[in-house]
């Protein structure tokens, strides 16, 4: 009996340990090690901080980093502002018989590849695109304008891509909000804004936090959307990493950038959890 138990444990433990150590722990240790290695004049690899010094000395690098971080925060905030009313509508306002249908409708676009969604926006927005076609035909625009490749469209694309990860957690927390709380507040004379800030948002905060963490992290690490919708001006930090790895073939510099991005992303996740006193286990469920 005891022997059997040991075998069961070993049977379940070994694939999981192999997975986590070979594909997660060791590669990330390697990433850290590589970021401190640099080729010296003789062509030998030595230990050095210079990959990190490069980052701080070259304004284009750290400016891109800061820009990516700030835009990711902006995207997270916008996603929240757009998602909250939708989640509220589906859980509290719409007739219950449509609830399930609307929720499925909400999820459906996100099953489709991110690339297809971004491509859809590209044919909508570009100079020869669908929106320009309608606007010029209606006489609103005299000439088609290029709407792609600006910061605004890049943010639009990022908000669109990450919407799901905000709507779903907020919908599920609002589902558990007791309607009588809102009714009571209403009977006591509270107006809409008071109810929103005193009841709805405090109750929804676990969902908001987990949504925000996921959205922030995904936006920060996104490569596809900034690259295709922001064009050459997108200056997203993942593109710097890609350039170092694939274009310049400077893997050590790229590792340093990668590690910095990982630190930023982990820091924000940790901070978000600390501020709201939650743990990772609860958030991912």
């Amino acid at each position, binding site marked *: 009996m005891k022997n059997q138990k040991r075998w069961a*444990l070993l049977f379940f433990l070994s694939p999981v340990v192999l997975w986590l150590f070979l594909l997660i722990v060791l590669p990330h240790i390697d990433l850290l090690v590589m970021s401190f290695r640099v080729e010296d004049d003789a062509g030998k690899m030595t230990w050095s901080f210079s990959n990190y010094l490069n980052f701080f000395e070259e304004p284009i690098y750290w400016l891109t980093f800061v820009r990516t971080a700030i835009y990711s925060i902006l995207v997270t905030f916008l996603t929240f502002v757009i998602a909250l009313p939708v989640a509220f509508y589906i859980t509290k306002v719409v007739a219950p018989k449509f609830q399930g249908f609307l929720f499925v409708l909400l999820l459906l676009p996100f099953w489709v590849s991110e690339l297809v969604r971004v491509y859809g926006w590209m044919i909508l927005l570009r100079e020869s695109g669908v929106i320009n076609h309608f606007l010029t035909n209606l006489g609103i625009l005299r000439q088609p304008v290029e709407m792609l490749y600006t910061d605004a469209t890049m943010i639009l694309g990022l908000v669109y891509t990450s919407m799901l990860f905000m709507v779903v957690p907020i919908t599920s927390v609002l589902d558990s909000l007791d309607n009588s709380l809102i009714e009571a507040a209403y009977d006591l004379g509270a107006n809409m804004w008071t109810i929103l800030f005193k009841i709805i948002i405090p109750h929804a905060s676990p969902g908001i936090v987990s949504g925000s963490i996921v959205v922030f992290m995904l936006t920060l690490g996104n490569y596809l959307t900034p690259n295709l919708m922001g064009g050459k001006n997108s200056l997203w930090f993942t593109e710097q990493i890609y350039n170092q790895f694939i274009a310049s073939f400077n893997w050590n510099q790229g590792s340093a950038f990668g590690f910095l991005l990982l630190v930023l992303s982990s820091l924000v996740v940790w901070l978000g959890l600390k501020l709201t006193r939650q743990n990772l286990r609860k958030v991912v469920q």
Partner: protein
Amino acid sequence: MIRTLPTSNTYNWCFKLYVLLYFTFLFAPLVVTCVLAFNDSQFPSLPWKGFTLEWFTADLPERVGIFNDQINLDSIWVSFRVAFFVTLLATTVGTCGAFLFEQEDFRFKQGLYFLMLCPLVIPGVILGISILLFSNTLGTYFETNLNIDVELFRPGFWLVVLGQFSFIATLVTLVVSARLKKFDRTLEEAAMNLGANRFEVIWYITLKFLRPAIIGAGAVAFLMSFENFNTTLFLVGYEATLPINLYLQVRDGSTPVINAISFMLIVGTSMVALANLYFSRKGE
């Protein structure tokens, strides 16, 4: 405010309009992509020049439909194979993970659980580069010290499979764990009393109970693998997966063939998604 409270007409209409706008925003890019797949024009744009199926079926010098477009067909096949192996690996290891964290006890369980969640908060790009680095380190080590050239350590098919598996397995673990939590363990005890050993119990009882969750997680794993871009980007060799291949085409200008592929992807994934949803509802 809510259903039970009196509300003004303006409030209701504004809210309805907002939600309508939101859904338009959600579906506009997909609908436009699908519609333009059938436009009889050299470019995926308006004006509408008539309905055609040529972007699917044609094999003309100036127009090659998707069914005759060998490069794209190859990449779809690569994606299918990658997704198949990722699903197989991720469901197996993920199910082991679920059993491990729900039913077993050992030292450092909390630590390992935390580690298992990590792939969810590591950006896909970072996962891609660190696995690339590590496989390269291993490859160089094997080559210089043991004089063996290991194909697996070079960017290519199997590295893509491993890279995608590394985070999709976490997802499977979470989904299967959630179902395993609801399992009534007295059933196991009953089977044990009747003389079954641990593995027989798992095989004949627990796994039967978990089957809907495992199938659902497998479907999600398949879709996630099929459309993964960020991690794959760094690990791909000469066999490009569909998203990588589409990306290269979209970046360098586009033809309605991409719309035709997108149309098939949208229809295909929607069907898998709806089937998955239907069966998971039925399971409850």
